[in-house]
Structures are given as structure tokens and as C-alpha cells.
């Protein structure tokens, strides 16, 4: 049951001066599945995300997205906002980046900026509240309310995002990314700082997004209880190179991975440490 490839990365290299953060990385992300990228700190996971989403321009290599409606797109040639706007590849951040003084609902509406801005016709239709703009506004509100309900944020919709607890902020960031209508959702450590109950909820959410909405998810995560339980496919990076790839079961028993995580001379039981509670 090999699904169609949504994103294929070929020979991607990213150098910062003398430092090679990503070294000749090739991998592919299937459509409608959850792919996890794991690896020790400094392995180049976030740099990979930055290359993918237009924040860095890769030194060499290609990132091709098979967009379901717009055909093939070369993400490595697109800058900054165009990756999110045109290719609909949307990301969240390791250290949450919300709009803290704006309310949760406003955060979700801002995420739909491009559609609304087009409808407001250089703000003229918006200033006079013409029907075209009003319709777009109602649509945007519907989308926002849909995701608010889905992620259990309705009760706090009018609270400033920055005033809310950490775990809730993580959910808001995911909700905001979903409002952009992503083809590929890239989550950078969504479980960081969550308690066990919250990360269990995150698992349920990620699985339902993938199964019910058909959104492909690319996940960077250290929390093995998330990675092992939701991923269809795992890719392990170390020092910017891919050292292993496969299903959670294969990864858990891969000697290379165990070595990267625990070192060779470690005496503890490796399998249980990365095994999580799968």
C-alpha cells in the first residue's frame, strides 16, 4: 500500500560557512500519512524544516512538492511567504510563535489573510463592507470556528493567545496552521512541554487530522510516545545525514539508531528507552 509521494527531497545540502547542517539528504513524504523526523539535538531537523518552508535557501538539492491542484512545485526556489501561500506547506515552530496580544480567534483569522486580503480588493471593498468582502469574512469565520471546535478552543476564542497555558498555545498554533488550509503540515516538536495527558490528546488529534481530513503531516519530535504511536514512517537524522528510515517497528530495532541516540558503550536497555509505550 505505497501511497503517492507528496514531497520528495533529493540531495539536499545546507551549509553555513564551514558547517554542513544537512548533508546530501534525500527522503520522500507520502500523501495522507504521518511522517516523523527524529534525531539527536543538532541533527539538522529544524534546519531541514527551514529549508522546506522557505526560511533558508538550500545550498544544493531540490525539494519537489506534488501539489494536488497546482501540479509540481519546486519549494527550494520559493521564498518566505510563498511556500505557505502558493504551495500550502505550513509549519509551526519549536518555540511557539503566536500573535500573543491578539485573541485566539484573531490568530485564526490572520492565518487566512491572503484569501481575505484578495476579497477586500486593496481594502476598498473592505472599507465599504461590500458583499464580496462580507461573504469572504463569513467564510473565514466559519473556517476559524470549525477548527476552534475541532481543537476544543471555542471557550477561549476571545482570550489573548499569550495569556493562555503552554499546552493550549501549542494547540492554537496547530489550529492557526490548519486555517491556512495546508496540503502538508510541518510540526516542529508539537509535544514539547506537554504533559502525558496532553501528548496523548495530541496523538488523537494528529491521527484524526490525517485519517479524516487527509492532511499529510511531517513531524519533528523527541517525545517517543508520540512518534512511535502516530507515525506511519520514520526518518532518523544524525549530523545532517539520514541514518535510517522505516516503520516505527523497524526504527526501534535499528542498531544505527540506537547507537546515535545512546552511544556504543551505554549499558542501559536501549530498546525500552526509545520504545515508548507503543
Amino acid at each position: 500500500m505505497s501511497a503517492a509521494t507528496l514531497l520528495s527531497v533529493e540531495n539536499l545540502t545546507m551549509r553555513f560557512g564551514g558547517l554542513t547542517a544537512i548533508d546530501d539528504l534525500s527522503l520522500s513524504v507520502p500523501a495522507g500519512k504521518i511522517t516523523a523526523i527524529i534525531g539527536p539535538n543538532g541533527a539538522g531537523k529544524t534546519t531541514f524544516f527551514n529549508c522546506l518552508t522557505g526560511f533558508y535557501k538550500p545550498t544544493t538539492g531540490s525539494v519537489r512538492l506534488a501539489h494536488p491542484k497546482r501540479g509540481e512545485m519546486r519549494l527550494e526556489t520559493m521564498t518566505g511567504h510563498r511556500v505557505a501561500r502558493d504551495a500550502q506547506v505550513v509549519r509551526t515552530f519549536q518555540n511557539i510563535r503566536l500573535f500573543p496580544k491578539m485573541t485566539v480567534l484573531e490568530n485564526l483569522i490572520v492565518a487566512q489573510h491572503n484569501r481575505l486580503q484578495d476579497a477586500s480588493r486593496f481594502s476598498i471593498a473592505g472599507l465599504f463592507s461590500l458583499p464580496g468582502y462580507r461573504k469572504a469574512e463569513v467564510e473565514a469565520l466559519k473556517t476559524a470556528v470549525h477548527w476552534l471546535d475541532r481543537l476544543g478552543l471555542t471557550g477561549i476564542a476571545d482570550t489573548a493567545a499569550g495569556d493562555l497555558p503552554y499546552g493550549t498555545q501549542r494547540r492554537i498554533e496547530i489550529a492557526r496552521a490548519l486555517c491556512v488550509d495546508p496540503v502538508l503540515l510541518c510540526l516542529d516538536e508539537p509535544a514539547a512541554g506537554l504533559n502525558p495527558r496532553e501528548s496523548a490528546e495530541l496523538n488523537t488529534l494528529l491521527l484524526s487530522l490525517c485519517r479524516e481530513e487527509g492532511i499529510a503531516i511531517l513531524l519533528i519530535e523527541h517525545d517517543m510516545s508520540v512518534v512511535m504511536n502516530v507515525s506511519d514512517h520514520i526518518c532518523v537524522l544524525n549530523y545532517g545525514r539520514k541514518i535510517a528510515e522505516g516503520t516505527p517497528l523497524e526504527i526501534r530495532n535499528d542498531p544505527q539508531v540506537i547507537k546515535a541516540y545512546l552511544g556504543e558503550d551505554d549499558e542501559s536497555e536501549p530498546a525500552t528507552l526509545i520504545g515508548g509505550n507503543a
Partner: protein
Amino acid sequence: MSAVIVARHARTPTERFKDAAWVAFVALLLGIPMVGMTTVDQGGALVVTTRFGVLAAFVAASFAGRFAFRWVMDQYRTRRDAKSTTVKVDRTAKVVQVLGWGILGVALFLPAMYSDNRYVVDTATTVLIYVMLGWGLNVVVGLAGLLDLGYVAFYAVGAYTYALLFTHFGWTFWEALPAAGAMAATFGILLGYPILRLRGDYLAIVTLGFGEIIRVILVNWTELSNGPNGIGSIPRPTLFGLPFERNPAEGEQSFATFFGLEFSGMHRIIFLYYLILVLALLTNLFVSRLRKLPVGRAWEALREDEIACKAMGMNVTNVKLSAFAIGAMLGGFAGVFFAARQGFISPESFTFSESAIILAIVVLGGMGSQMGVVLAALVLVLLPELGRNFAEYRMLLFGTAMVLIMVWKPSGLLSSREPTIRLAKASAMGGQK
């Protein structure tokens, strides 16, 4: 001295007593040489005598004073803490609204109340110019979070555009107004392009430089701007073509003759007042409406987190340039009014201190708050006026007031932010459709 340290919890009488005792002890230490001992001239020789009675009274007064002061402050604090903070936010919005309508009411009837007092109406006009400038700069600094220290440049561009369009092509106020707005917006975009990548301090320095460049050009490019001599005899605005003159041109009517009124210099002053009131209110309406549109929300999002904006697919370049252009345009409008009101402009009117005052209005008012700008403009323009009696201490008073505001209200007079959309209200609106 631990007893004098301010405690967070409610104080018991014992604690208050201890606190006052400490203060009395300090008073005693200081009092022995300063009050308790004194020198008396006794036949040409100085003799030290003691005054223990006075010292005892001094110490007792310190004790009682401290005790009473603590008690009053504690009462005040308990009462303040009793107010729930959640209720307070909603009430602030309500108070601001009432205050806004109140100020608008006063503004509307002010010339009627002071129709023979030129000074009051003139000062009110000045306040309104600063309110309008504050609202314009609020777009750039308060909403988009781009620190602009050279806002006066756009004010100057607006004023000079009108002055030059009049002297060379005879354009009237109403014809020049949109042209000057467009011109200032163009300058805003011109400034915006090179500084797209800058933030914070760096942005502030470049905008500061831009403001100075415009002023220096105006001083030195004599062929264009008439240099430091400025441009004079700029015509006053007319009311639908009716000028405010004592002797209108042959075959034409003036405001006074048209309405059959006796000519009075106050007509023009009051007209200018209402004109800037209307311009300022339009500015407010425009900016408040923009704030609820995608472009306004994008400005605020940009202020909050630029990287997150990019990740949401927002074209940050356009967002920044639109903020600069619209802020500059509003400054340009105010500039045209300024030129028309003064009748004479020179580069001296557009120095850095103007930029600083406008920025102070926005910051003291509470970044992004429309009503805060009004309050801060009132404070910052009226304080130096009221302080005229204090002559050379005027600016000292002004500075002290600014420091005090920043101590009491570090985030501005009105710092609570009203959301642009509320779920409850919005769903009710959507439900009707």
C-alpha cells in the same frame, strides 16, 4: 530596617506599630544632632544646649505620622485589590467609549462656548493637529510596530506639497489635499523600501535620518523650497468656495456676506477648528475601520511576530509598505492643514522635536490605542500651555509629567487592547445571514 520594607499581605496592627517605631527610631537618630542640640550665643561664646522636649515632640510626630500614613495606604491597597481584574477589562472598554463620546461632545461645542476667545480655539486646533498626527503615526508604530522617529518628514512633505502646488499652479486647499496625501504616501513607500529588513533600533535610526534629510533638503534646496525663508501667503481653505475675508474680490462673496453676518476674524479660526476636527474624525474612522480589515490585522500580526506572519503566507513586504504608506498619507493630510492654517511654512516647523512629540503621544497614549492618543495629545499639548505661568520651569514640568506617566502607566495611559472581532458577536452576525 526590615520592618519598613513594604509587605504584600494586609498588615496587622503590630506590624504597623513596629514599622512606625522603626521610623521613630531613625527620626531620633537624626533628630539628636539636628533638633535635640542647638547652639546659643552666651556672652560672645557659643554654648551647646539641649532641647529634649522638642526632640521628643519631633520623634512622637514622626511615629504618629508614619502610623497614620501606613494605615491610609493599607486601606487604599485593600480597596484596590478588592476589585476583580477580569471585570476591570470590560469596564475599561466601556469607560473609554463613554469618555470618547464625552470628549467628542465637548469638542463639538467648544467654539460655541469660547466664540470670543481666540486663544482657546487656537490651542484646541493645535491639540487636534497632534491628535490627527498621533492617529497617523499610530498606524506605523502602534499597529505595525515599526518604530518611526522621522514621522515629521511626511508632515513636511504634505505641507510643502500644498505650498508649492499653490505657488506654482494656484491649486486650492481642497485640490491639493488628495495630491499631498498621495505625495506623502509615495515618500512613505520610498522610505519603506530600503528599510524593509530593519527592525527596532536600526529602523529607528534610519527613520530619524530620513526625517533630517527631508528637513535639510528643504533648508538647502532654495530654488524649490525658498530655503530657510520658507514659503508665505499660502491661502486659507474656503468653505465650498466661500473665502473668509473682510473684502472679497469684486463680484464674489465671502463667508460673512453670503450668510449676512458681520465680518469677524473668529469665523476663520472657528472654521479651521471644525475643519481639523472633521479631518481628525475621518482619520479615526478610517484607521479604526482598517484595523478590522485584513490589512489592519496583518499590521498587528506583524508587530507581534514577523516570522510567524511569513509562515502564514503573508507578504510581509506589502504589509510593511502599506503601513508606511497609509501612516505617511495621514501625516501628509495633517501637513496640508498645517500649511493652510499658518499661511507660512519653513523648515523650522519640521524639526526632530516634532517627531519626538508625536511619538511621545503615541507611546504615552498606549501603543495602538486610538483614545489613548487623544488623551496623550491633550496632556502633551496642554501641559506646556498651562505651564506658561511657570516660565523657565515649563519644560521641567513637562518632563516630570512624562516621567510620572511612565512610572504609573508603563504601557501608556490606555493599554488595554480591544479585539477586532469577538466570537459571540461575530457568530450572531453570521447567523442572521
